[in-house]
């Protein structure tokens, strides 16, 4: 039995790096410090859906083949393709991503990562107006106003609040955990009174909770001392339950709401009484709270990036933050999903200049989402081969994109027999990054963290890095042979 400390969790963009694992017989048996998702992954990653050998589709069925055969087949497909897509990259190491760029360049393809279906719009927004941001520790130490907009950290990034924001202890700002526990107790008391009232035990009407949802009394919660937590969403999520103030915005109206707040923080007047379902009177209170904080931050999620307005939502959110800096310190950060989607953007940018959706078909990198992302290409069926690594588009892409994807040869590299692998023509089993192989990942705030190897991968299973390197070498050999044949022919 051995204990490994300071393990980085390879799940979400939080990249909590304080996980303690107990290993017995090359197996993780205990997880300390992790959230429920983290525990589930470390304890359950072995599952029965693990792919055990390379597979190739023959007569409609995936059959086991040798690694050499699979590598050669994949390289043949890629070397001969006129417009291949190499997609995924968000759940692997930046070391593998580096080789990915090189391979895509070699085969003249389109390299895209899962940002295209999550925070790609954030990047487009940033390219319009920039982004005032920081690392997460800065927020822990300094932020006295925290806003989650269109995201639910309690469910999707469970330790975000505890490690980096409201419930974290900073140098200049203290944790709100105790206050929250007191609030919970008070609410539990109220609930008891309410249920007693309902069951007829008590006749009197309980006092109205100083609820923060709209419509109701003016948001007195905004004048409380200490760290304030505001949640803005279309529904009352778990995180909204915990917030000091919750604004329920009409679906697809975030853009109008933010634009209106931009006017109000400059003491401007609006010709309307309500914006996105929220009375302007309320928004003025919110604007005051924004302006009067010492250090505010907005975290945003797919509630902004994937709803009407998409990258314009992000652009305006950033513009709001930018405007707020004329009055106070205010920053903004996307809540990135996959543990190394940020790394996929980072690596792609340093090697090619562009963060995602990079098209190498002309021999140099080009970038223009709307034209060069894998989604653009798949929907129009312009590709003739696809390699998917460390992602599962078969499960989460639009139907048309998946239909077009399987029309042409599909190469899949993944530890699991996921939906995409089941559709694949050439399938490589891969070792789990951050469990069975080491590497580097970039946290949502661009802080690089080492991923550890805590157990040995199963016999004959290689890392993404190794598989890609072998395919790349094989592609080069095939291209060289073809060039030689051409010379001989003429």
């Amino acid at each position, binding site marked *: 039995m051995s204990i490994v400390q300071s393990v980085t969790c390879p799940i979400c963009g939080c990249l909590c790096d304080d996980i303690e694992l107990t290993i017995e017989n090359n197996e993780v048996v205990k997880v300390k410090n992790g959230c429920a998702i983290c525990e589930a992954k470390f304890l359950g990653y072995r599952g029965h859906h693990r792919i055990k050998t390379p597979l190739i589709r023959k007569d409609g069925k995936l059959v086991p083949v040798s690694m050499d055969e699979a590598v050669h087949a994949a390289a043949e497909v890629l070397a001969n*393709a*006129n*417009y291949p897509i190499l997609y995924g990259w968000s759940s692997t190491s930046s070391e593998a991503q580096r080789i990915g760029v090189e391979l895509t360049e070699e*085969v*003249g*393809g389109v390299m895209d990562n899962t940002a295209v279906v999550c925070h790609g719009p954030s990047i*487009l927004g940033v*390219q*319009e107006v920039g982004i005032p941001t920081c690392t997460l520790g800065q927020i822990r130490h300094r932020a006295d106003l925290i806003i989650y907009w269109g995201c639910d950290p309690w469910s999707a990034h469970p330790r975000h609040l505890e490690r980096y924001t409201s419930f974290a202890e900073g140098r200049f700002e203290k944790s709100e955990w105790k206050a929250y526990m007191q609030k919970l107790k008070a609410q539990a008391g109220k609930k008891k009174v309410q249920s007693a009232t309902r069951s007829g035990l008590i006749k009197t009407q309980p006092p109205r909770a100083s609820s923060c949802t709209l419509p109701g009394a003016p948001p007195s919660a905004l004048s409380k001392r200490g760290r304030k937590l505001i949640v803005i969403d279309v529904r009352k999520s778990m995180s909204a339950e915990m917030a000091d103030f919750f604004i329920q915005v009409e679906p697809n109206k975030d*853009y*109008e709401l933010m*634009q*209106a707040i*931009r*006017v109000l923080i*400059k003491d*401007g*007047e*609006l*010709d*309307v009484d309500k*914006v996105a379902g929220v009375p302007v009177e309320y928004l003025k209170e919110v604007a005051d709270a924004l302006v009067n904080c010492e250090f505010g931050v907005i975290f945003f999620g797919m509630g902004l990036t994937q709803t*009407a*307005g998409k990258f*314009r939502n992000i652009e*305006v959110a950033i*513009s709001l933050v930018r405007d707020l800096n004329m009055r106070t310190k205010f920053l903004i950060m996307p809540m990135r999903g996959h543990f190394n989607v940020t790394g996929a953007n980072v690596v792609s940018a340093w090697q090619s200049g562009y963060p995602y959706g990079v098209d*190498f*078909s*002309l*021999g140099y990198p080009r*970038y*223009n*989402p*709307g*034209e060069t992302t894998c989604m653009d290409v798949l929907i129009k*069926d*312009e590709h*003739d081969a696809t390699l998917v690594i460390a992602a599962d588009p078969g499960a989460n892409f639009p139907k048309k994109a998946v239909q077009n994807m399987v029309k042409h040869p599909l190469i899949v590299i993944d530890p699991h027999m996921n939906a995409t692998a089941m559709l694949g023509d050439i399938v490589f089993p891969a070792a789990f990054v951050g469990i069975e192989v080491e590497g580097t990942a970039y946290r949502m705030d661009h802080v690089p963290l080492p991923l550890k190897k805590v157990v040995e991968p199963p016999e004959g299973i290689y890392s993404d890095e190794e598989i890609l390197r072998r395919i790349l070498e094989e592609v080069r050999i095939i291209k060289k042979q073809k060039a030689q044949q051409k010379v001989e022919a003429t």
Partner: protein
Amino acid sequence: MIVLTPLKTFKFPVTAECINPDVFQGKTVAEIAALPVFEGNRQKTLGELFKIEQAEGDNPSITINGDASEVRRIGYGMKTGEIVVNGNAGMHLGEKMAGGRIVVNGNAGQWTGSSMKKGLIEIHGNASDYLASPYRGSTDGMKGGKIVVDGDVGADSGCYLSGGLIKIKGSNTGQFLGYHMSDGTIHVEKNAASRLGANMTGGKIVVSGTVEEMMPTFTIDSVKPKVKIDEAETATGPFYVFLGDLAENGTGKIFASKPNNPNLKAYEKYL
């Protein structure tokens, strides 16, 4: 005049910025056929993808007969002459155009007339998203010239417009028309979608039909009987005139037809 006919239906994107009267000028058919293009990741010659013929008339013009919806960058940066596409045209048609005329008897792809400076683009079908809008991250919008679209236009059209005229005759536009424009004119003869003129700082958008929704960050200024579109044309109203976008301290103007927008009557109390 040169006539190009696609030899097949293109599956892969064809990058062909050489399809430009300035480039063809003074070249023989054989020389034109040898111009380099890309089909997917393979370099080809124009002649491998198109039948190329010399036709009557020696003015520098190009006609494409057939579907060119996968052919990108036609007329990129062209300065003179004329291109007629009898069929659909692909993305980046007439991008950075500096003169001449492009006519599409069909639909046009995204970024048509992107960052154009001068010239005329006529689209007799629909135009897709980002009509006249600049490249990612750039604020270099359309500076001059004229684009006329008989059909609808997609989202984010006319972004960062700083001069020239866009006329839309179809019944619909996408969201964010005239986004962040600073000058120039957009005339929507029928209806405009929401987030019209968001972040605009100058220029004018005239909507003769209905406005789906005004941004809350525009303020009513006045009611005007008519408004000038260009030297040749005046649109008659009456129009509500809105100023904005207040979020950018903008002084852009949106003219919204009074009879077609009864829902905007509520604003009259501020007049």
